């Protein structure tokens, strides 16, 4: 999957405009990244990549790029 498509999916899970999200953004600086979007992210990984992420792995994600790294089949 292209990085562009990944960013699009992430924008969708956080209900952001695609242009408001970039790989270098720090998650704690994104107002929309909260416990609810974290749940949506987990669901999206499952739906799109058939993948389960552990709470520990998710906690270690600090940036949008870290989330994108998780988005592999």
């Amino acid at each position, binding site marked *: 999957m292209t990085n562009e498509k990944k960013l699009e999916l992430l924008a*969708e899970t956080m*209900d*952001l*405009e695609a242009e408001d999200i970039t790989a270098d953004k720090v998650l704690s600086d994104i107002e929309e990244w909260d416990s609810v979007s974290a749940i949506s992210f987990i669901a999206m990984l499952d739906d799109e990549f058939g993948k389960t992420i552990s709470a520990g792995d998710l906690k270690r994600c600090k940036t949008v790029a870290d989330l994108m790294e998780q988005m592999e089949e």
Partner: protein
Amino acid sequence: MKNPMDLSNKYILITGASSGIGKATAIYCAELGAKVVLMGRNTEKLLETKKLLPGEDHQFFAMDFRTLLGNSVRRDYLSELFGQITAGDRKLDGFVHCAGIASVMPLKSLTIERLHEVMSVNFYSFIEMTRNYLKKKNSNDGSSIIGISSVLAVRPREYELAYVASKAAMDAAVPVIAMESAKRRIRVNCIAPGSVNTEMAANMAREYKNQNFQEKQKKQSIFGWQQPEDIAKVCAFLLSDASRAFTAQVLRPDGGYR
């Protein structure tokens, strides 16, 4: 003079707009100044509704909600459809889900397929449409979502399990959606009519033949049968700023159901 139910410049999406309550709601909203997007199954009937709308810039899209079930292609179609509706950064100010089907079937003959069909048109589509509506790119803050439920959700009739359950599901879901949309001050409510003179009611009378359905239903309510326009007015109220304090409610324009 002030009109508290003024809808001018509001952009409203209505399902079930080809007939009955949805059609009356589309007309009434357009009369109050709204631009409306009509949805239904039947293109010809949608065109007919569109012709009756005062003002310009109204649009319509035909879609059969039964195709939503277990079909991710159709789900993507819905998000594309919202893309078309909101093209040019035009966001919606309201969504009214009037699409619905009745179903009379004793439990012993109620197949899972039939139950799915009724749930798809009456309830799943409401949730899928609402989910898409609530994306920030599709709707304005402070806007309004309405599900057309039924008195039968709380005053059930035998042999209508699928219908009753689909409407009770809607009543139950609405407060949850209201809480989840509160941050954007989007209001989410149900309207639960009693007996309304529409095609659906005429079909029911046919299904309950020999049982004097019309007369029986009339006696169920102090005011007897309601007209589609009576429900349309309550929709307009919930879409307008006059109802700013209403969320997570079920409004009951049922003429005093007893």
